[in-house]
């Protein structure tokens, strides 16, 4: 047996290129169906788990899928905005409470999500380093953001301008990173959290500048009368909020009209949730309410219908590969006819020859299986990317 193994190994090593091709071919055939199955199952689990954590989402009428993707996965889909006032109407139902979300901007490719401190309690997110949000201009970042951007509490992070060529557009805001969240294995890890009001400042709804009434620089003032001071565009708008500048920051207009992407509605109990949804169905409340898990389930069912086609393809490809493998083995036996005859002439029994060839095949299958297992293991690292590129 030992000698048979030795001879089989020597044979495979001698024809290493052919062995390599066979290993890759068999390995891929084993891996592809189980790897894809894993991607699909893990993605489903991950997405459903996240969706299950959010009881109800209220957003503007339109695509419920875009709403959920924006509100719980923070993928910034273009959706119509609600206002703070809409949230007030929901709170007035006294059936639960709302948590506002505003996901419109990015900082170095990570979404900036404006919310209130309630979100951290609701999601049970804990600060690993630093502290939670306290003042305007601060942000708390997810574990992945901190790792990828090499940031720690005390550093700063600048919001990305919407359009680099729009010089008069939204100003980037230099935010202070005050805390880093514990890793949670959810989209929260890849998010920059700010207070809703900080997001409104990034939008330009609030800003800080010198007190225009006290301006003395003539190049800053176009005209001044008893009721109005008109300044030039030279008036510097602060792009960072620190203690000294904090007082000068202010918001224009009624905050109740300020935008919010969506509201998480946390009902007091199941009965409240049912009544709440009933009010939307009866048209007593404006906008739309969705149950994230239902929306995500529907989305996944639509996407993964293609899974059955893949499975059929893999069965056919697998059968074809098996036939090719049999052909290769048969041809190789024919090519090795002289070699087998020599071994037989040297006194080797027919049984031994079958054993050597069988071990060769077994080794090929084992190595291919190992390759498939390694690929299967590596697949686990690509679930997030799979979700991002193929589902969201």
């Amino acid at each position, binding site marked *: 047996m030992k000698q048979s193994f030795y001879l089989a190994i020597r044979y495979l090593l001698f024809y290493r290129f052919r062995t390599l091709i066979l290993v890759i071919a068999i390995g891929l055939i084993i891996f592809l169906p189980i790897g894809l199955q894993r991607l699909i199952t893990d993605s489903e689990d991950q997405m459903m788990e996240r969706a299950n954590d959010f009881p109800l989402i209220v957003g503007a009428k339109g695509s419920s899928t875009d709403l959920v993707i924006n509100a719980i996965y923070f993928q910034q889909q273009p959706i119509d905005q609600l206002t703070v006032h809409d949230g007030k109407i929901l709170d007035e139902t006294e059936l639960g409470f709302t*948590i506002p979300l505003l996901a419109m901007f990015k900082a170095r490719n990570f979404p900036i999500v404006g919310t*209130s401190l*309630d979100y951290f309690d609701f999601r049970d997110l804990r600060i690993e380093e630093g502290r939670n*949000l*306290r*003042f305007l201009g601060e942000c708390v970042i997810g574990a992945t953001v901190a790792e990828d951007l090499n940031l720690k509490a005390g550093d700063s992070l600048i919001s990305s301008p919407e359009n680099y060529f729009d010089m008069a557009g939204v100003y980037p805001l230099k935010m202070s990173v005050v805390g880093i969240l514990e890793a949670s294995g959810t989209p929260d890890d890849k998010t920059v959290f700010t207070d809703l009001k900080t997001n409104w400042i990034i939008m330009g709804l609030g800003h800080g500048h010198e007190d225009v*009434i006290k301006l003395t620089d003539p190049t800053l003032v176009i005209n001044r009368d*008893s009721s109005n001071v*008109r300044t030039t565009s030279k008036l510097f708008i602060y792009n960072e909020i620190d203690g000294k500048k904090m007082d000068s920051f202010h918001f224009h207009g009624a905050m109740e009209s300020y935008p919010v992407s969506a509201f998480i509605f946390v009902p007091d109990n199941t009965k409240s949730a049912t009544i709440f949804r009933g009010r939307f169905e009866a048209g007593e409340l404006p906008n739309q309410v969705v149950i994230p898990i239902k929306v995500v389930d529907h989305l996944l069912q639509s996407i993964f219908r293609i899974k059955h086609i893949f499975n059929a393809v893999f069965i056919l490809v697998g059968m074809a590969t098996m036939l090719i493998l049999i052909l290769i083995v048969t041809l190789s036996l024919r090519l090795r006819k002289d070699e087998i005859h020599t071994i037989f002439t040297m006194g080797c029994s027919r049984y031994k020859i079958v054993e050597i060839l069988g071990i060769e095949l077994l080794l090929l299958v084992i190595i291919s299986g190992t390759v498939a297992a390694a690929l299967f293991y590596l697949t686990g690292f690509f679930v997030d990317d799979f979700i991002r590129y193929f589902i969201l």
Partner: protein
Amino acid sequence: MKKILLVLIIVLVTISCDDSQKSNNENEVSGKLEVFVVNYPLYYFTEIIGGAHVDILFPIPAYVDPALWVPDEELEEIQKVDLILSNGAGYAKWMEKVSLPVSKIINTTGEISNTYIEQKQTKTHSHGSEGEHVHDDFEYTTWLDFNIAIVQAASVKKALSELRPGLKEEFEENFRVLKKELMGFNEKMIQLGKKLNGRTLFASHPVYQYMARAYDLDIISMHWEPDELLTEKDWLSFKQALENQPSDIMLWEKEPGNEIRLILNELGLKTVVFNPAGNTSENIDFSILMEQNMLALENYITSKPD
């Protein structure tokens, strides 16, 4: 027999687990509520209504106007409380510049927000692509209209009752007592308003707008501080205002300095302290303070009848 014993043990264990869970829940519900309030009137209302069931967080030093106070390290404590009672009407601007758990904030004047009084003042300004705008706001000494004070107290009662439904009756009873007191103040102020009969009152600071509206008082507000000396220019413009609107009384939030009082006396004005009670006063609660305010006003009316 063994089976019966086993079933009994399981039943006993289940009951004991249920009991311990129940007692844990009871502890949770019976714990004191941590409440943060933005000013002293709300402190007083919460103290009366909540009684021994609330711990009130009011970290603002007595010498600071709570409307202008800005928290620093205190914010961490504020973020942790069960309930944050705000005054509304733009009071405590700092609340716009900090992160708070919004679900815990109750605007005690939310119900009557359509009756807020807008500030008259301020210049507009324009810069960049924006149009004219003004950093205006509302007047915020809402509780000096005792009808609004009752609305605020009712808000406090409702918020506490929602957090501790088991104590609803007690909170309701405490609120009734407080409401009676506030209605008494309201009645008294209506009488004083009638006695003043449209007489012009000067005020050292613009803090009496809601009181003026509710009790039909004609109040002209200055921007004077009790312990700050006034310039010649200030006096000159005040004298002009006094010529246009003759008056013999000026309301102050606290006793003005001697020098100011003497000059005002020379001009024929009596200084009357009407403390809005935005912050705590030594050993005097809201109720006593309001009684003192009204007594001072009544004494003036008695000394200077129409």
